């Protein structure tokens, strides 16, 4: 057992003194030292005292709980259009989400965004309302939930490309930023009925999405079910936790006119600071070019994959690197041929954009997020998309500063590549935008 004497400077001083003392005096002295050291108060360090004084004066923070969130975004910027020079543009967006408990078992959810853009040039203005979600949920028991309405269903653990996010096809209606989070957030939900059943460590959900329209609508206030529900679709999702670190999710997707597709999501904690992930989708299907051009073609088993890792450093910097692959997308030879195929090239690019698919066979994606850099409440985010088939790239940089109820954001985007390459063909060479987001 260790004695209860603390290693303080007082203790060392005592040792020096006791070495010169007669042994007979040792007993009472040691006894008194033991008592003294147990009773001597460990005084507060100055920083600790300051901190406690600060806490004494800390105001009571009242946290308001509410069922809705609303923010407005006012943006201004300019795009360096190829051949046309810099073009100014402005935008006002209103974004509302609400999640209201109607009754003990019933909830209603609404999510809507209105984008009003203007450029000052004839035909340059646009107004788009995106009804992202509007649905009712009924939870008759802790382990059963049923939904009816428009739901933004999203699956996938990858950051830059989500093969298993089957309902992303046709979901984009108004693109205001190429940030992955923005593309996932600002999209149309799907009209559907869903049931979810839970057990300890696992869950299964079944989704049925009927066909509700034929064609996309550009009418500003249209709910656009033609874009979100152009075909009858179904999805089964099963998750099971095996251990703390192994928690896969399996998906089975069916669509009218297509063979079933299988999906898998898996992410693992590799170290205290890194997460590995893999997302996969596969099944019998035609090549992307054949599907885009509506050509009759033989189907074969095709795979789509996104695999990567996120490493977080002590400085709070998180860095994600991701490899993306789609066997149904054109390889180098097919891509070169398509680039010289005139209208077919344009139709293919349009189809890929709508489906949010990979344009060519392979790509790399890097994403860095650095909160509180270079100063507290600021955040620097950078993204690089690099096509491995034609070596074109998209670079994107975002700087944010968070005020209490507002965010000031500056975004810069640069597209590099040959004229008909994946990123070189985008209309703007580069763009610079600033916006102020105010949370009500």
């Amino acid at each position, binding site marked *: 057992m260790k004695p209860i004497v603390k290693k303080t400077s007082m203790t060392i001083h005592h040792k020096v003194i006791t070495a010169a003392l007669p*042994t007979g005096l*040792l007993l009472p002295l*040691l006894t008194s030292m*033991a008592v003294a050291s*147990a*009773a001597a108060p*460990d*005084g*507060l*360090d100055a*920083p*600790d005292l*300051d*901190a406690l004084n*600060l*806490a004494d004066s*800390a*105001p009571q*923070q009242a*946290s*308001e709980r*509410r069922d809705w969130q609303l923010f407005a975004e006012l943006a201004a910027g300019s795009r360096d259009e190829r051949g046309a020079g810099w073009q100014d543009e402005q935008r006002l967006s209103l974004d509302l*989400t609400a*999640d209201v408990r109607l009754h003990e078992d019933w909830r209603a959810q609404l999510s809507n965004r209105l984008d009003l853009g203007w450029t000052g040039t004839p035909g340059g203005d646009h107004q788009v309302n995106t009804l992202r979600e509007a649905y009712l*949920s009924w*939870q008759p028991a*802790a*382990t059963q*939930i049923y939904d009816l309405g428009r739901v*933004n269903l*999203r699956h996938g653990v990858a*950051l830059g490309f989500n093969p298993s996010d089957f309902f992303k096809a046709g979901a984009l209606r108004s693109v205001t930023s190429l940030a992955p*989070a923005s593309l*996932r*957030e600002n999209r149309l939900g799907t009209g559907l009925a869903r049931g979810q059943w*839970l057990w*300890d460590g696992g*869950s299964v*959900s079944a989704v049925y999405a009927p066909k509700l329209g034929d064609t996309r609508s550009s009418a500003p206030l249209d709910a656009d079910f033609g874009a979100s529900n152009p075909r009858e679709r179904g999805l089964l999702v099963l*998750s099971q*936790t095996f251990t*703390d670190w192994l*928690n896969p999710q399996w998906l089975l997707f069916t669509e009218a006119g297509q063979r079933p597709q299988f999906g898998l999501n898996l*992410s*693992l*904690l590799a170290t*205290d*600071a890194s*997460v590995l992930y893999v997302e996969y989708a596969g099944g019998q299907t035609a090549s992307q070019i054949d599907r885009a051009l509506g050509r009759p073609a033989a189907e074969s088993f095709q795979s789509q994959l996104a695999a990567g890792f996120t490493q*977080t450093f002590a400085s*709070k910097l*998180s860095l994600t690197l991701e490899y993306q692959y789609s066997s149904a997308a054109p390889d180098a030879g097919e891509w070169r041929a398509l680039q010289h195929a005139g209208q077919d090239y344009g139709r293919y690019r349009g189809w890929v954009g709508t489906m949010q698919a990979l344009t060519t066979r392979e790509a790399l994606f890097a994403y860095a997020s650095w*909160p*509180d850099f270079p100063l*507290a*409440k600021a955040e620097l985010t950078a993204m690089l998309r690099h096509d491995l088939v034609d070596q074109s790239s998209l670079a994107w940089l975002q700087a944010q500063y968070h005020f*209490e*109820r507002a*965010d000031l954001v500056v975004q810069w985007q640069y597209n590099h590549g040959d004229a008909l390459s994946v990123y070189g063909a985008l209309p703007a060479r580069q763009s610079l935008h600033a916006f102020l987001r105010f*949370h009500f």
Partner: protein
Amino acid sequence: MRRISTTLLSPLLATLALLAGPLQAAPDAQQLLAASDSIRNPDKPFALTTTLTEYRKGKQVDSSALAIYSRADAKSGQFRSLLRFVAPVRDTGKLMLKNGNELWFHDPASKGTIRISPQQRLLGQAANGDVVTVNLSLDYRAEYSGEESIQDGEKQTRASQKLNLTANNPEVTYHRIELWLDAGNQRPLKAKFYSESNRLLKTAYYRKYQNELGRERPTETVIIDGLDPNWVTVMRFSDYAWKDVPESWLQRDYLPRFKPELD
């Protein structure tokens, strides 16, 4: 070798006997730690609100609030928690599920649920917020280090029992903890958290004890950063309530569904 005379030895032995007397009666350190855990953490599933206010050089730089729902895992005994961000407004509704080092983060806007690493502090102060419900006695081996008289969080001199905690689970964030408990009732008073390289990461003062869910519990923790003592976080706990969050909700696929009745 020189022989030690009995005249010299006897007073020394008597001294040692006096010193050793109270040590033989030293309380079971692990039991003390468990007792202190039960003061911080209720023994049934519960909910509370944690408000975090962050200061740098004496100036408030940030504040946030989390609603926390916890229940002890039937197998491990460790707490599994659902954390829902209440404030600031830009983070309202975001959720984190914490089960040891298994962390899932859900953003209701993008509908995405991703696994994050313990180091990935997506929302800054959550790193402090989620240490609220931790049963230290499950992850640490405690050694009784004796009684000390310390200044507690109320700046009062108090007799304390000091415990040295060593991690027996390599996955924990803090590899060593010094913990001071009130000698009279095992209330946690102060703690120092160290990294694997023995660097002081945080000092915490547990204070403002009030009756919550049947016993006196700390309603405020003051955390001082180990590297930068000018970085102070004040955590206040309120809205304690018994809430039976079903086991089946503590999984990734329930996060998009979770809406507390408190909201």
